[in-house]
């Protein structure tokens, strides 16, 4: 079977040079072409590559912020001071950044200000499936939703224009299948836009009640005007085909609909807030059956119904997970869903990497039967078997507050068998205030900062405590020990998490205290640590299986004995400390 004719029409022709870009990279490219000068954000799948791609352009001042709120404020400040600016985050990051965002909607901006947000339907790498389109409505901000990488670039450029024309921040909303889909993008040169002079305007920018009341009126005027203008926007486009079924859709769902229902007429919304209600009414009149196909919540559908436009939507597609061609065919045409035939297969969940320093911590916590308030990062994988050593995981930074709350509920003794575990980047993001609260509340909690010197799960981004900037250049390094002491913690100690005896001793001593203590478990991520040791080996195995309980992919039972996969083993030696028969030896030891 040779595939010679999968493409029958003429090859693709583009006027301009083109590049293969992820949706994330295309957003960054669009910002660059639009003359953006400042880009910031906090890493979060699937948005991380926006700021990473922006950092590759020398004309852009790029930096990782400690969290999304600071990033929002920095980008806002840059726009306020006359430079086009963009802030990037994942959907849950928008919760963190919401406070400045809602009021930035009142003040408007001087130079173009774009907020890029990436939702994660199906939770490929997230703790919830919240729909950021709600934020655009709640904050009265225009929101654009591209449906491929080309539109990511084009819409981002348009967003900067709109932002200046409307005197409003503009949100670009993408989802995982846009952010992490690579396709061809025509690229054009950068338009240099001069920084505007800084102008004081208290009535516009000082949001005390008297002035904010005036600005709220402006927000309403702006939105009313925009609600009319969106009906004429080329970003909202009607594709008239068969009128038996008409579909209103946006983003990646548009692409699925094109394949699932090739004959259906489509109203493709490039602007998902505010909705072009007269255009929608016009489209609806032409169709026998009107269906709204949108991932996550039924926002568009609800607006149609509120306007008295009959349509179907969530009763067909549901609110769970992401859509695809099969689900849409099933929902609209009743085509049976495919049988995946995978239920009998052993699962392959992600796991802590061989040599991961987090493994030592969770092995000890499990051994000591601790209550573990967890947080967001690679270490959340320790909640999976065989370690199964985490009780709760809520959001960035929550572990510390949860531990304090648990103590207030259960009493001081509860903290003698409880720890909060939080990564270095997550601690910087939003753990610091939790620690201050614990000190201020005279709690007795113990906080373990798992300091692997990087933001791990999102693919190794620097943060203020690594000593390097977004480009990998040296930068001032926040001293975690000094920071914790500065927050009022008297008891701060540093351990090597792969030294199990030392780690166990530290956890036992610190949890025994009647005061807040911090243990910084410091060892670089196994994926960035260049000092590889020779692999461990087994000699004298009694096949007891103790080493299998640490959940290392390099350790495997082969019939009546254990083998260590030398290709995967990093020689960290953690398993050699766990073996009760001293049958696992470090590679450096004499054989």
């Amino acid at each position, binding site marked *: 079977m040779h595939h010679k004719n999968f493409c029958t029409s003429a090859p693709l022709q583009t006027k301009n040079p083109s590049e293969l870009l992820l949706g994330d990279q295309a957003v960054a490219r669009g910002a660059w072409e639009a003359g953006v000068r400042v880009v910031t954000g906090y890493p979060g799948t699937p948005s991380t590559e926006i700021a990473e791609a922006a950092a590759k352009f020398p004309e852009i001042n790029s930096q990782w912020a400690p969290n999304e709120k600071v990033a929002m404020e920095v980008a806002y400040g840059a726009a306020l001071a006359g430079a086009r600016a963009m802030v990037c985050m994942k959907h849950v990051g928008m919760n963190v950044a919401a406070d400045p965002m809602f009021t930035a909607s009142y003040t408007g901006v001087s130079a173009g200000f774009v907020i890029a947000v990436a939702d994660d339907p199906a939770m490929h790498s997230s703790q919830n499936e919240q729909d950021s389109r709600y934020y655009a409505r709640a904050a009265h901000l225009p929101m654009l939703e591209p449906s491929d990488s080309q539109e990511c670039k084009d819409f981002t450029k348009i967003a900067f224009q709109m932002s200046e024309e409307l005197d409003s921040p503009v949100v670009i909303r993408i989802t995982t299948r846009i952010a992490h889909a690579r396709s061809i993008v025509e690229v054009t040169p950068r338009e240099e836009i001069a920084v505007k002079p800084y102008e004081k305007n208290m009535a516009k920018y000082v949001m005390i009640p008297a002035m904010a009341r005036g600005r709220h009126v402006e927000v309403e005027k702006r939105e009313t005007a925009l609600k009319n203008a969106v009906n004429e926007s080329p970003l909202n486009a009607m594709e008239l085909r068969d009128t038996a079924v008409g579909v209103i859709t946006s983003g990646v769902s548009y692409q699925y609909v094109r394949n699932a229902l090739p004959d259906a007429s489509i109203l493709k919304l490039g602007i998902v807030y505010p909705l072009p209600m007269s255009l929608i009414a016009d489209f609806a009149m032409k169709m026998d059956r009107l269906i709204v196909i949108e991932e996550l919540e039924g926002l568009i559908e609800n607006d149609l119904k509120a306007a008295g436009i009959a349509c179907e939507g969530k009763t067909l597609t549901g609110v769970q997970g992401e859509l695809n061609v099969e689900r849409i065919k099933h929902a609209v045409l009743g085509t049976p869903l495919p049988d995946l035939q995978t239920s009998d297969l052993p699962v392959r969940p992600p796991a802590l990497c061989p040599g991961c320093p987090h493994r030592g911590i969770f092995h000890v916590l499990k051994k000591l039967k601790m209550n573990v308030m967890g947080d967001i990062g690679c270490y959340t994988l320790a909640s999976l078997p065989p370690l199964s050593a985490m009780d709760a995981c809520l959001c960035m930074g929550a572990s510390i507050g949860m531990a304090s709350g648990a103590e207030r509920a259960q009493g001081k003794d509860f903290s003698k068998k409880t720890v909060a575990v939080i990564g270095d980047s997550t601690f910087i993001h939003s753990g610091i205030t939790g620690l201050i609260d614990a000190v201020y509340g005279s709690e007795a909690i113990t906080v373990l900062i798992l300091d692997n010197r990087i933001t791990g799960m*999102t693919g190794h981004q620097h943060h203020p405590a690594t000593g390097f900037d977004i480009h990998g250049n040296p930068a001032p390094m926040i001293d975690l020990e000094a920071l914790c002491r500065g927050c009022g913690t008297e008891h701060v100690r540093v351990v090597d998490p792969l030294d199990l005896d030392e780690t166990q001793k530290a956890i036992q001593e610190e949890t025994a205290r009647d005061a807040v203590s911090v243990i910084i478990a410091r060892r670089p991520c196994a994926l960035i640590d260049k000092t590889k040791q020779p692999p461990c080996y087994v000699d004298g195995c009694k096949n007891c299986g103790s080493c299998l309980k640490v959940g290392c992919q390099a350790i495997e039972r082969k019939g009546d004995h254990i083998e260590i996969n030398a290709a995967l083993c990093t020689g960290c030696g953690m398993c050699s400390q766990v073996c009760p028969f001293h049958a696992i030896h470090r590679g450096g030891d004499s054989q």
Partner: protein
Amino acid sequence: MKCLNIVIVGVGGQGTLLTSKILAQLAKAQGYNVKVSEVHGMAQRGGSVITHVRIGAQVHAPLVAAGSADYLLAFEPLEAARAVSYLQPDGKLIVSTQRIPPMPVLSGTATYPEEPYQALLCASQAVEALDAYAIAVEAGSYRAVNLVLLGVLSRHMEFPEEAWIDAIAACVPTHTLETNRKAFMAGRKK
């Protein structure tokens, strides 16, 4: 609007992303439209990974629909089994036979199936199974399993050999080009 649909599956860290990048680069250089849907973040870290590649005059959905893949490129037999439902009735599975036991198997709570994907295939679906790991090691690096499998796939596609080599050169670091080229050719000539 027929597209060529390729699904690439493996274990996080095996290099599935590079494979799809090379395919996309090749398709673009040959004047086709292409979409690749990747998996980043939490979904990696030794877990199952899947990448969708669609090539054609016009590509809409970034995901290959179940039952519509022309090729399933599997870096691992168990992952092949998990993704067999993507293959169309006359699709072809190209699979490396090297088994990578997942955590439940390593820790003894599950058993690695004797023949993970065999019973799931229908008679009209072709299979080419090879030890891409051994071939990659022979070519100079165990990391080049992806290029070996890409070499096998290349035999089924119309693109000239130089175009493949150019696409590989555009996507891999210069110092690994020779090993990757060797691994690719070993798969292509096998």
